[in-house]
């Protein structure tokens, strides 16, 4: 074993020694642009991060690659948290230039970056994404409130008798038990696993907001935020909530086969499957492009990407990629990203972030 490992590492080194030479030839064309390249040059942009932003970032990257002389950026879908981890590891060609995120960077992540030498991080918001609860068109659309979503999906809920301060394990088996106006079908919700950003956002936007409708829980939030989050964010584990994996297409297929079930996924999947699926009304609003854009649909969240300022100017095409992403033809009201299901920001906000992209204004960790 050891002998083998030794032999491997020798071969590994040999290969590595050859590789910059091959790269040198390839990148010869772009050497003029990147004379101050950090170490051995990388001639394409490397992007990691959220699987929710992935469908949008890839479209921009492809458009960028086809309309400019730069290479098409490489995009990995690692999840928001995984993306920040890679992004924060340091400055240099072996680290990614940009990370996509379906939530804001955390203070701890920002500080970790600074420790590793990534002192200047530029934050760019790109638009909004709606989270929908949808079911098959073979059944009636659901009309839910956030409170009902909380009651149906939380692991522990306030005692139905109304006694304050008492939690019981979730007793609800059917929707009718949650609210007599709802259909008498079993509660069965297919949703993403805890590693997913969609799940984080759903728990925060739907369940936490629902829990706050109970006055004593709201009071608890002020006293003991951690305990409140434990109550509001814990999804039941008795089979009513089924973790269906990160593949949203799979959820759509399962919903089609089972008209009684509800699914949780990003708006873009509903948008592509309007012939099979319908979105549930949440607090009286059905998820639609316009309702998410004007903020009347409650379950929507902003999407971001973060840029390593030290890499702009050293990795070819960074500034141009930012320009493409922040152009009206991409993220504007009628841009090509809206066709992929991105909900655009209002014009003022777009102008604000376009100017940040231009001036590369970094964020300050302490303000997070």
């Amino acid at each position, binding site marked *: *074993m050891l002998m*083998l490992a030794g*032999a*491997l*590492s020798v*071969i*590994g*080194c040999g*290969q*590595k020694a050859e*590789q910059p030479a*091959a*790269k040198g030839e*390839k990148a010869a064309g772009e050497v003029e642009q990147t004379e101050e390249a950090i170490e051995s040059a*990388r001639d*394409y942009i*490397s992007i990691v991060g959220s699987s929710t932003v*992935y*469908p949008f970032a*890839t*479209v921009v*990257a*492809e458009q960028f*690659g*086809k309309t400019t002389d730069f*290479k*098409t950026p*490489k*995009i*990995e*879908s690692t999840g928001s948290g995984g993306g920040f981890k890679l992004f924060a590891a340091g400055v240099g060609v*072996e680290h990614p230039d940009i990370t996509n995120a379906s939530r804001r960077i955390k203070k701890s992540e920002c500080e970790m970056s600074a420790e590793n030498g990534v002192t200047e991080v530029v934050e760019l918001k790109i638009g909004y994404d709606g989270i929908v609860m949808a079911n098959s*068109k073979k059944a009636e659309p659901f009309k839910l409130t956030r409170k009902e979503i909380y009651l149906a999906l939380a692991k522990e809920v306030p005692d139905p008798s109304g006694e304050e301060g008492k939690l019981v394990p979730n007793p609800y088996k059917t929707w009718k038990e949650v609210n007599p106006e709802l259909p008498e079908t079993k509660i069965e919700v297919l949703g993403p696993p805890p590693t997913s950003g969609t799940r984080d956002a759903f728990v925060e936007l739907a369940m936490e907001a629902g829990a706050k409708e109970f006055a004593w829980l709201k009071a608890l939030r002020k006293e003991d935020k951690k305990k409140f989050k434990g109550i509001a964010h814990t999804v039941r584990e008795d089979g009513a909530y089924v973790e269906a994996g*990160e*593949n*949203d*297409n799979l959820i759509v297929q399962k919903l089609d086969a089972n008209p009684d079930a509800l699914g949780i996924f990003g708006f*873009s*999947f509903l*948008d*592509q*499957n*309007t*012939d099979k699926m319908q979105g549930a009304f949440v607090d009286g609003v059905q998820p639609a492009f316009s309702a998410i854009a004007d903020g009347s649909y409650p379950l929507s969240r902003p999407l971001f990407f973060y840029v390593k300022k030290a890499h702009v100017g050293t990795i070819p095409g960074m500034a141009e990629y930012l320009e493409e992403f922040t152009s009206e033809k991409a993220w504007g009201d*009628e841009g*090509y990203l809206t*066709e*992929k*299901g991105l909900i655009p920001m209002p014009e003022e906000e777009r102008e604000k972030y376009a100017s940040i992209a231009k001036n590369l204004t970094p964020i300050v960790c302490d303000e997070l």
Partner: protein
Amino acid sequence: MNNSSTMNGSRKAGRTIDIVNRGLKSRYRKEKRFRLYGILSIVASAAFLAFLLTSIVMNGYSAFLQTYIKLDVPIEAGMIDESNPKRSNFQGIIKSAIREYYPDVTERREKRELYSLFSSGAAYQLRNNVLDNPPEAGTTLSLWVLADDDVDMLMKGHMKRDVPESERRLNDRQLRWIEKLENDGRIEKRFNTTFFTSGDSREPELAGIWGAVRGSFYTMLVTLALSFPIGIAAAVYLEEFAPKNLATDFIEVNINNLAAVPSIVFGLLGLAVFLNFFGMPRSTPLVGGIVLMLMTLPTIIIASRAALKAVPPSIREAALGVGSSKLQVVSSHVLPLALPGMLTGTIIGMAQALGETAPLLMIGMVAFIVDVPGGFTDPAAVMPVQIYLWADSPERAFVEKTSAAIMVLLGFLIAMNALAVVMRKKFERRW
């Protein structure tokens, strides 16, 4: 008397043929049942395979055809930038050609709906056409351009026309425009060459498997170049030269153990050693090939040792008897005789590596890569990764692409396994 009659009786009952005859029927029945079980299991496996293959083929065969629309593109003076034709506004030229064909569409929103029937790839098609063959001003180019994936789904029948407007992605107006194209014979399905010549794309009609095929090719080349010599050298040493002691027993146990280690573990090892420690470039066939080499090595060593064991000792003894050295025995007698078996093992190991995604996830090869890789250090994806990425895409048209990519991958696997069988048949020696 009494005694002798019982003896007689027992001799009668104990005649071997009687015992055989008595049991014969049930023995035949047993054999019949056993055969039946065998046939049933074969039928069951064949049925599963047939079900899998038909569902893939039924889903995927339509991906080999793609909908094209014939568009007359009038080229007027000034449309093509004379000094730098590459920089001309090809999207604009396509749009004006579309407007010309539908003169009654004037409202802004309607125009957008109209343009969305055509793929964004149409402009690139026009650009390539113009750059290869610069047209004179005043001529009209007649081009078959790609239709949008929604139109493609409609033409292939995956989108129904007779359902209410809200339940399909094309509205009634767009359907009327498509009918006009159909009446003029300007829309047809053709063989999808894009699928076999281009890299990944977020537009289903522009997406192709070629980038992934090339990525797989480079990755497999690295795997083969490293694992074949190392695997065979290790097997020959262990089998022919190594002393039989505790240390070699320990190595043997470890190799067998490694063959059963989940492949994601090799990915983690690759991430820690090759990317973080040696600083090799992420997402490249070079690193992917090395990681897959680690994974296939045990398979190759085990198969090679079995092949070496199968060479009869008499051959070694005869060679030694005429005065060959140990090295000569191995290199000119044992190795050539064992080689077919070793090659079979190698090919099966490579076929396994070809279908692997888990270890590649950790080293960044599960990524969106548009440019077709041109070497070992270009970022690349491999075929199973491409299948995974397409299966996860929201656009409906990627469903058939996914199945088509599976068919291509299966084609490669069948070819590799068939090669292994042919080589075994051809070089096989019986003693």
